[in-house]
Structure formats: C-alpha cells, structure tokens
C-alpha cells in the first residue's frame, strides 16, 4: 500500500497530538526544594515546572509531625517569612495540575534557635557568690528586655576547662559518649558572655572565620583588649595598675624613708592570667618611674634625694602553707612596708593574718571588709560603682549592652557577623562607665579602705 506524502504528514501530526496529550494528562514531577535562613527570616524556593499550574507547601512542627498544615501558594515558586525564634519545622512542597499532585519534594528542616550563651565558670563544682550574683543580674536584665523575644539567653555552668572545650568544640560520637555539636560552629550562637579572664581568653583564642561577639563581664586582662571580637565590661588592668601605682607613690610620700613593697601573685591556673597580666602592667609602670629616677642618680629635679615606692620582691602564692611561710619570712627579711596582692580573694586572709602590720593593697575582687578592720587594707574597685552591687552592675551592663545591640538589628540580620558589626559601632553609658569596643577607657578604678562597717572610699586631697 502506497502512502502519499499528505497521508504521511497527517499521520505524524495525529501521532504527535496523541503522544503529547498522553504526557500532559499526568500530574507534574516533584519539585526540588531549597531552604535558606537569614536571621529569623526563612526562605523556601523550588524549581518551576512547566506542566504545573500551582504549588502547595506542607509544613509540620518538629515536635508534632502529624500536625501537617498545607497552604496553596498557587503559582508562587518561593516564599519568605519572618518567624518566631524557637520555631522548628519540617517543610516540603508539591506541584499540581488538573491531573493531580506531584509527589512531595525533598523534605527540609529548620530550627531557629538564635541565642546568647552565658558561660559561668564554677569553682570546685559550685558557683561562687560573686558569680551567682553576676549570672542572676544578666539573666534578670536580659530576659526582661524585648531582645529576649528574639534571642534566647542560654546559661551554661562550666565545671572546668575540659568541659568548656567539650561544649565549645563538641564531642564526636564514641563508644562512651554521645555526639554533641559544639557551640563554636553553631551560627545561631550569636554572642557569648563570659565571667572570667581565663574563659574569655580560652574562647577568644579560637580562630574562626565567623567569630561570635564575646563580652567579658568581669575580666580585666589587657590581652583581651587586643582581640577583635571581645568587649570588656570592666576597666582593664592597665588602668588598674596605674591606680595601684598612684596609691604606692602616695604611700611613699607619706613615708620618711624609702617605701618598700612586694607584689604577691595568685599562682593557681584559674587566677594566673589575671595576676600575671596585672603584675606585668604594674611592673612596667613602676619600672618606667624607677628608670627615670635612676637616670638622675636617685635625685629629683631640684637635685634632692627623694623617697619613692620601690619594688623589693615578687612572690607567687598558691595558698599552700609553704608559699605562705616563704612570703611571711620575706616580709620580715626585706623589711617590707606594704604589699600588693593579686590573687583569689578566698586565699588572702591567711596572708593578711601573718602580717597585719604592713599596708595591703588588693586587686579588684570580693573581700570582706570586716576581716581587715584593724589593719590597713585598701581594695581596688570599679570606679563609681555601688560597692554592694558591683557584680550586679557589671551584669546589668553586659546584658544592657547586648540588648541594645540586638534591638538595633532587624529580624533578618540576627546573624553573628551583623551582631559583631553592630557591637563595634555601639557605645553605651552603663552603671560602671561608658562601654564599647572602641571606648579606650571603659571605666576607672577607685580605692576603698576596709573598716568594721564597710569599704570606705579613699579620697586623696
């Protein structure tokens, strides 16, 4: 049978229409879903299908996956929404046409857990009274602010440095341990508040391409000031050492002879960073003065021999009986007039008790004035601070600063880099002075003297 060209064309046309109609008479293929979060903004998008007439979005909370909600988005191929912090959903899409729905796309999941960590270091398994006060103040202040509606405050009590490393870096799954994601790589951890110098240093030493803001509530170490992502709430050791040196110089002026002092350094790992850093600055300040005096052969500008505060010894102290005995002997041997103590407040009393007759200056810390009422003990305190509420006020300042930074950011910018950027541009007048990463002197120090009733502000004429 011969087929004409016309018949052939008509046949092919009929075949094409038949095949085409058969293919179209099916639901579309499953789309491919892509999910992105930016701050509290979640964006879902999927590929366009030519045979689809619309799309349906299905989602269910992760804690109740049976409770699925389906929304018809018609021809939309993406959707963005600002959600509540804490929202955690499974999500999928389907395409549809007149022949039915496609299978579900890939199922994606997100959990918004924007938060700030409050790391508090424990001593012998307990929070010290001072750190408890500090932690309480930060929690109360931050959680009562609007910022807490968008960012959670997560409190982590850290028993020791090993545990700090575990929670920060995470744990790989082993036979003994379950796996644990580390905070360092969790982008939802926007900032970290620390309550000790060593902890601030440990965390800030971690190199990360997207580092979180670190606020150290009470740390004074100058080393921290050099870190690009660290904000010190407390005035630094450079400022403290200058103030201590001023006090020593005034003591020397009142003295009829050379004023001989020693420095006692806390030597335990938990305090050594603070004490060595403060010592380093005091040494530099004292030495600058001594060099200037040496260059003039010990004479002042009018050629007179002048008494000055002279360092006659530096001794580490770990609270042991041996180190106590050595320091006690040295105070006698070197005929010491005064001592500067930079250590754990809890370890100070035995030292004071062996030599209550000399003048003592102690670095910032929590000391009980009534224990030293009969002696001459002065303490460095953050300038202008309410003495009974130093820890609270530092906590309030840390929380308020953070609150201010969080509030300045729109929901979709609640990210590490944006928060750090905002923190760098923020200054805040706190209870304990002006705070900010570009503020050169974020507070000052006052000197108080122990009496039976209280710590009394020392005012020099």
């Amino acid at each position, binding site marked *: 049978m011969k087929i004409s060209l016309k018949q052939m064309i008509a046949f092919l046309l009929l075949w094409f229409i038949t095949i085409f109609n058969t293919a179209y008479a099916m639901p579309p293929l499953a789309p491919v879903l892509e999910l992105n979060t930016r701050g509290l903004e979640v964006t879902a998008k999927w590929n366009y299908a030519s045979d689809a007439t619309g799309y349906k979005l299905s989602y269910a909370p992760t804690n109740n996956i049976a409770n699925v909600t389906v929304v018809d988005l018609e021809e939309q191929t993406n959707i963005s929404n600002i959600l509540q912090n804490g929202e955690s959903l499974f999500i999928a899409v389907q395409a549809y046409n007149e022949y039915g729905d496609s299978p579900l796309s890939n199922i994606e999941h997100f959990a918004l857990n924007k938060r700030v960590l409050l790391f508090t270091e424990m001593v012998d398994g307990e929070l010290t009274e001072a750190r408890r006060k500090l932690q309480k103040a930060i929690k109360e202040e931050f959680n009562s602010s609007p910022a807490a509606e968008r960012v959670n405050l997560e409190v982590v009590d850290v028993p020791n440095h090993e545990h700090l490393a575990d929670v920060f870096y995470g744990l790989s799954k082993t036979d003994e341990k379950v796996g644990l994601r580390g905070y360092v790589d969790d982008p939802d951890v926007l900032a970290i508040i620390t309550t000790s110098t060593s902890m601030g240093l440990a965390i800030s030493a971690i190199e990360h391409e997207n580092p979180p803001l670190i606020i150290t509530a009470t740390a004074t170490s100058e080393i921290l000031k050099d870190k690009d992502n660290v904000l010190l709430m407390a005035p630094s050791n450079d400022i403290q050492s200058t103030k201590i040196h001023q006090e020593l110089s005034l003591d020397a002026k009142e003295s009829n002879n050379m004023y001989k002092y020693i420095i006692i350094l806390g030597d335990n790992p938990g305090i050594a960073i603070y004490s060595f850093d403060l010592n*380093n600055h005091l040494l530099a300040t004292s030495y600058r003065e001594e060099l200037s005096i*040496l260059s003039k*052969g*010990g004479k002042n500008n009018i050629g007179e021999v002048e008494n000055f505060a002279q360092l006659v*010894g530096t*001794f580490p102290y770990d609270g042991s009986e041996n180190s106590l005995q*050595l320091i006690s002997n040295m105070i006698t041997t*070197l005929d010491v007039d005064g001592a500067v103590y930079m250590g754990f407040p809890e370890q100070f009393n035995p030292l004071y008790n062996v030599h209550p007759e000399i003048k003592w200056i102690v670095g910032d810390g929590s000391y009980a004035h009534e224990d030293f009422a009969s002696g001459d003990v002065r303490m460095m305190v953050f300038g202008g601070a309410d003495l009974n509420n130093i820890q609270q006020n530092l906590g309030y300042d840390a929380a308020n600063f953070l609150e201010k930074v969080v509030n300045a950011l729109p929901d979709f910018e609640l990210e590490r880099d944006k928060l750090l950027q905002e923190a760098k541009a923020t200054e805040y007048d706190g209870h304990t002075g002006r705070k900010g990463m570009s503020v050169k002197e974020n507070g000052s120090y006052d000197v108080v003297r122990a009496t039976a009733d209280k710590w009394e502000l020392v005012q020099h004429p």
Partner: protein
Amino acid sequence: MTFFISQLSFSVFAANKIVVIGSENMHKGLLASFDLEHIPTNLSYTLPNNYIIEVKSNTAPLDEISQQEDVLAIVCQTSNECALALKDSAAKDLLVISATASSRLLGDAENIWRMAPSNTLQAKAIYNEIKTETAQEPIAIIYEPQDYGFDLYASMMEEVFFNTILENDGPKLAGAIPFHMNVNLDETQKSITADKAIAALQDFSKMGIKSVAYFGYRDGFNALTDGTMGGNPNVVNHWYVGDGVAIQPDEKPLNLSVFKPYSPNIAGEINTPAYYYAHDAGTLLSKAMTKMGTTTDPDRSFFLDTAKTLELSNEETKTGKKTFNTADEHGVFNVDVYDSLGNLQTKQITFTR
C-alpha cells in the same frame, strides 16, 4: 668656586667617625674586621675614604656622643650602655649597633641594629635549661633593676607565666628579688643591699629552693657569691646567670651555668661574644661604607638608611646571618656549666622564635 668645593668636601666628610663604646675585646673584634690591629695606646684609627674609628671605654655616654655632628655611627656593647640611645637626649638620625646587648627595648628603636639575640630568646634558653636540669623544682631570681637585668627578668616572667597558664611541667617561680648594689641610686635608696639579698637567698634555701637565676653584672654577682667580699658561696645550690656575668674558667668554685651569646671559638681569635659580635658589627659598617662609596650625598641619616637595607649572610659573619631587626630569628647560646670543683663543660643550645 674654591669656597664651594671646600664646602662640598666638608659636607661629604661632616660625619665620618665610628665610635666604639665597650671593652677591649670588643675594640679588638671590630678593628679585626677591618684588618686593623688593636694598639692599647691608640684610641683612633683611620680607614680609607677618611672614615675614622674611635674606641672608648664602657663608661662613655652614648647619648652625648650621638649629638656630636662628626659621629656617623656608634657601636655599643651592653644593654645599659646601648639603652642611652633610646633617651630623648640621644640623636636618632645615626646608626647605633648594639653588639652583645640583649634588652628587648632596643628592638623598638628605628636606628638600632642589634647583632645579638634579645632577652626573649635568652630567657627561653635559660628557662628551658633550668627545666632540663631541675625538672619542676621552683626557682628564685635575683635581678639588677636596670635595663639589662630588669628586661631579662621580665622576659623570664613571660616564660614562667606561659608555663603556669598552660599548666606545663616547667619550673615555677618561688620569688624574685631586685638587687640594688650597682644601680645608679643614692646609698639611702638602695633597699636591697648584698646583705639583704643574701638573707633573702637564705630564706629561699630554708624552703628548699636550690636554684637561683641571676640577671645582672659581674660585680653584683661577686658580692653575693664571693666569700672574700662578704658574699656567701654556699647559700645556693646552683646558679644560672645571664650573659652579663662574664666569668673566666676556673674562677668560681660554684655550681654555675653561664649563658652567653654564641662564640664560634675560632683558632687565633678571642673567644668571647664581645669580640665576635663586634667583628660582625665591623662587617656591617664595612658593607655600608662600600655602598656609600657610590653615593653623592652621604650624611649620617643616609648612612643609617643604607645600613638598614643590608643583609649579613652566614658566610660574612662570625655569629650567623642578620638583617635589621632579625637577630631574634636565631638564638644560639653557649652555656658554660661549672661544678663546685671548677670543672667546666660547655654546650650549645639554640632557640628560635
């Protein structure tokens, strides 16, 4: 025209004097680098192109000398002497070469070329040697609170600090005492005399502290350890001293480790750091002079800038390659270890940054 030429001539040689402040061994080393023999009575030596070397004792005041317009460069020996270059009263537009000075402060200056490694490396070397020898036993430090002693003490404290915070197993510090005998103060201001320092050493000893590091100069060390001078040779079990204490072999019947910058001990040469580092200083000056020979406008700041661009290779030097500010990349030290019978063992240790 004649006036113009003489003025130009004056300009070229306005600053042509190299002043060398230091010990005789240092003078010898620097002169040897120019193939000149040291003659004790001769304080001035003429070089080609009208350059002059003038040698002076350690007490010559560097800051005053630097203000003399005909001085092109100064070579100094110790930290205390070289530190005068940092004072406001010192000119900053001329080259100062510190031969064996180790104070870290010198590294901050724009016009000081250090030949020897700084106290940062010396402290590392001493600390690690003590760690090797004494394990975890605590150590005491006696230091003279001047540029050299204080700086070495502060460097040592950094070592102790890192050991403490990293909870390493190095020796801890038992205590540190300044020693004022030789510092430039009125006698009434010298609170820690030799008697007091010896009493403090006895306190350390009573508590079982056997090792003491001494960062100061020889006179002070002798006052503490020489019985004929009122010192007490028995109060310390083992002394570790920095390069400021120049002890001769068999001089001290003490357990003693002396840390010195590297000396290559070449036959026919004087085996002291002062000689070799001064020799290298001379090599640098020689290279700078050669380079200056082709320039048309030499003055001391230009000489300084020229010197700063130079490099000294291993082959050119006695103590290792150097550029401006890089003497700290390699810290090679000789350690002379004496025992109480006067026996000597020498070893070499190296610490890099």
